[in-house]
């Protein structure tokens, strides 16, 4: 659910923001991409540690 809801809030997912948006030089897409990568890495390490 978080994937769908978050993608709508961020106006894109890994493809929309991470690939297409970044390729267009969109700072908004870059901000979203950096945020979701950093969050995903942090949550992965957290869930691995639990």
């Amino acid at each position: 659910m978080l994937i769908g809801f978050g993608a709508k809030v961020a106006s894109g997912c890994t493809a929309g923001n991470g690939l297409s948006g970044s390729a267009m030089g969109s700072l908004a897409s870059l901000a979203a991409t950096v945020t979701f990568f950093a969050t995903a890495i942090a949550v992965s390490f957290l869930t691995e540690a639990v």
Partner: protein
Amino acid sequence: MTLSWTGLTSPNVIRDALLFKSAYLFLFLSGPRSRPPFVGLRILRARAERALLVDRPVGWKVPSPQRHHIVGGMLFGTGWAIADACPGPIATQLGQGIWWSVFTIAGLVTGIAIYLRGQRAAAPVTEPSAATTQPSAVPG
């Protein structure tokens, strides 16, 4: 097909990348997956090509970063790390016939539906009510 061939439909590949056990995902996204759109979009714009479906010149407006990009990125990143899948691989998993992808796609669709419902509920009513549009019955 690219996602299928490169193995990114496997949650283990995404999990290993997010835990820095493998650089495969990062190398794939920073090279073969991102350079073609970067180059292709600029060629289309430089040649003033027209979009096939809407018959308008290819171009784009770049929005400035706003709070919802960061908040949405955090929500999406959390979901991505829990499910070890994002919309592209989920659709590819379904296409490959991986049965458990129905659960991730159900979650994805539910999340979108919740967002859209919230948007509809928050949208201001644009239709004026009948009471406010009726002309006064009292003659001037």
